[in-house]
């Protein structure tokens, strides 16, 4: 199997001296193409920092993040932004939809930013899968939490990224909706052959992944 994502000796420390926090401490991981990986850790274990680094949102002190063979931190900020919208799909805990845009627009937003033509058939297919075909013109404020997160999933899929990064995607949802959203996410990732790295503190949810990594004090321990 082809390795889609790899970190090499990744380091990120905050502060110094006594109060130094080793958010990421010489971490090297590897994710294969089409894999569903869950990164599990307690609050403060460094899992969010790791995800941010994987997504190119934050720069490490040292080390490399290689996605699809490209060392993303060799890119300048502007290039990195372009890289993100082409190669990475994000799903955030608090959905992060644009309140002014309707469901359809939120989904095609990354394509729009990239100046790409929307493959309407493909996007409509995704929307069918997440079950929001009836809500295309609704604004985020009219949706429930679960529906919002489904929109976020569709948005992450729409640009056919190399990898999807999900940061506690069910953190703001009740337990019934939680399972529903995770199922949809997993199903979609399979269907579209996507790679998914998900952060969670919830062991049950983690169990749905192909592989679980546990992170403690900035180090992947398993």
């Amino acid at each position, binding site marked *: 199997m082809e390795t889609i994502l790899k970190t090499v000796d990744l380091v990120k420390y905050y502060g110094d001296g006594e109060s130094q926090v080793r958010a990421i401490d010489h971490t090297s991981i590897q994710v294969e193409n089409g894999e569903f990986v869950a990164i599990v850790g307690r609050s403060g274990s460094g899992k969010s920092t790791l995800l941010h680094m994987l997504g190119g949102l934050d720069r490490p002190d040292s080390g490399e993040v290689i996605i699809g063979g490209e060392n993303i931190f060799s890119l300048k900020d502007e290039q990195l932004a372009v890289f993100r919208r082409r190669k990475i799909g994000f799903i955030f805990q608090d959905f992060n939809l*644009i309140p002014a845009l309707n469901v359809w*627009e939120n989904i*095609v937003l990354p394509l729009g*930013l990239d100046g790409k033509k929307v493959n309407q058939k493909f996007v409509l297919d995704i929307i069918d899968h997440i079950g929001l075909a009836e809500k295309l013109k609704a604004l985020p404020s009219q949706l429930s939490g679960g529906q919002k997160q489904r929109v976020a999933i569709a948005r992450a899929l729409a640009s056919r990224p190399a990898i999807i990064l999900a940061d506690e995607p069910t953190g703001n949802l009740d337990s019934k909706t939680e399972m529903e959203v995770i199922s949809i996410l997993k199903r979609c990732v399979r269907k579209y052959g996507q790679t998914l790295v998900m952060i969670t503190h919830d062991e049950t949810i983690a169990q749905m992944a192909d592989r679980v990594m546990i992170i403690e004090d900035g180090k992947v321990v398993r």
Partner: protein
Amino acid sequence: MNIITTTALANFKKNKSRNILIGIAIGLTAFLVTMLPTVVIGQISVQFQAVNEVYPPVHGAYRDVDEKTAAKMRADESFAAVGLREQAGRMYSGDKDVKGVMYAYDKTVLGLSGIKLKEGHFPKKADEIVVSEGCLKAMGLSGGVGDRIRVPYQPSREGRFLKATEKEFTITGMTEDTPEALEKGVYELIVSEAFAKEIIPEGEHIYTAYFQLKDIEGMVTEEIEDRIKRTGEQYGLAKEDIVENAEYLAANYVDVALYTGLGLLLAVIVLAGILTIYSIYYVSMLDKVKEYGRLRAIGATKRQIRKLVFREGFAVAAIAVPAGIILGLIAGTGLVKAMIHASISSDRILGEAMITILESGEAKIVKWWIILLAAAVSLLTVYVSLLRPMHKASRITAMEALRYQGGRKGKETARKGYRELNIPRLTASNLGRNKKRTAVTIASLGMTGVLFVVVATCCGCMAAEDMARESIRKDIVVSIDIEQEDEMHPEWELDAIQQDNPMTEELKDEIKNIDGVTSVETSLLTSGNISEKQGEIKNADSEEMNCDVKGLGAAAMKELEPFITDGSIDDPSLKDGTGIIFSKASLQQDHPGWKVGDKLFLQVMDGKEIRERKVTLAAVANGPTSLMGYYVIMPEEALREMCSSDTTFFWDISVEEGKEDATAERIGELIADEEVLEIGTFREMYEEAEDTIRFMLVGCYGLLAVFGLIGILNLINTMINSVYVRRKELGMLQAIGMSGRQTMYMLQLEGIFYTAGTLAVSLGIGSILGYGAFLWAKEEGIMSIKVYHYPAVPAVCLAGIVLAVQILITFFVNRSFKKLSLIDRIRFAE
């Protein structure tokens, strides 16, 4: 300190940048409401004090009062005092430009007028006189107090000056020469009542009666003026012979119009202040919903939330209001001083008195009541601006706030949206999302812009050039200077001049040949009478003539065309010489019933003769006086054809640029020997006009600067808030791949939208209202505004400044935004 105050103060510190903005807005409001009354009240209080020193304490004067009427007035119980002054005659120098007017004052006037002699005493006997040094010199005489001088003089008789005789006077006193007297060559001398009685037969005395009214305490100036007018009319006096001492009245009684105007201006400032402060709160409130919600969640009552918002607002005001007031006082007093020093040219005596008062520190410019008023008005402004935010904040429920995701609750409906997105579409969606906010922002930005454009229009129309053009058409004018009712010089009367007019073709040619002169246009002018009756006037020197008739050449007629308000300049009657054009102002005032198409009888003075013609009122015009005169206009050929004598009156001379002074000097030399010709130059008129409007312009542009400042502040606030409120949203957009350049582009587009909206509102509504203001000023004859000038330069400046400010703000906002790491931006909600 209770917990609400503590929290309010903590908030006050936390929301530093917002509070600085609000502080500036409040400070500006306080500054303006302090400065404006300080300038207006300070200026007039110094002026009033000076008026009371310079002007006699009389309420008004009635002119052309005969002996019987004067006696009746003296006995009239409604006057507190009536004093008489009579023009007994004038010293005769033979020089047209030197006059020594001999006034006889009664005791009352002498007492009221406060005339002070440099030395000596007022004349009592018929052969006593008070003179000035300048007058003696101009008349070719010399002497001091106690000396006897032989004075050639012309006795006055019913407005005419008789043949000169000589009389020996003893100088009993000397007066100071005013600079005006020296400049104009018109001196005032004082003779005794006995002298007036000696040279004017009983029954033929004509007085000017100065009076003080009784029982007018507590009346406003308008009422007093009205009473002066009514009383005068009861005595059968003509309108133009009733004069109120406006400056004295204004200085001592309440002028309603002044305070109304001041109040209106303050209202505009307060309104602008409220709008600005309110819009800052309105925008930042969106950001604070969560905070107030949390407080509600932990048990704060609505009342406490209201108090919290209120106290935070007033904490800002506590600093901003005193600062604004202090700056306002400093700027206000500075301006008053500058204005008083600059005003000296318009009324020298008054101006000098004002400077003396100012420098002696007698007049207090800083007034306690203005400070109190300004503080009260500013705080009220803050309070009113806070009302809505207080209400809004208190209505936020805990649940609402905790669920708050930065969007809006409730009413939003689905939006149609775009199939594909790009940056402009994204921007449009954002702006469209909160239409009300977008509209409020543009309205409040536009409002100051509208005020700016309106004031700029008024300033622009108040052009020194137009004012000067009111009295002079081209670069130089040579015209006839007539002198009526002088028995010594019948040759200075109009009829005589017409029969031997010095404005000959030869002289005209000579002028034409002067280097720099490009053209000389001739206009005619004569006295006339216009009536519905035939043959109303019988003889040429009749004082009954009721109008001027100006004859315009083809070029001038063409120039008049745009000023025609009714009828047509192409009317056939004007072509065949039987049509006249009427000045709109004169028509409205004297013959409101007449209209275009009416048949009238025009009589004109032609030397010793009267010519009559039946004419048609072909058109009405509202042009500058220098072009059309005051009354009746007809084509030059028509007037020439009616008269056999030469009615040439004006030469409007155009001169090559840069040669005006030399040419004027040359023409001056050329006509120096012609006593009845005088010369005027555009430059003189322009300088005079500039003096007159300089003040207004300084004030207006000051006001403009202030409006501009308020607007810019508002724009800065809007832009900063629109970014900071959405910082999480923007961060998220960047997380999913919006590049820095795209972010900048989006912010720029938003800014351009606000800029375009603001400019559309400012320039659109502002231009319309500005034109309205122009029409109003034109109708009311304010500052001789006649010609509309679009305030193009200020409008371009406004557009440029707004655009530049917007680009700058976007740049700085984006830069400061970049400093936050992307993670911080995404996480901002926490």
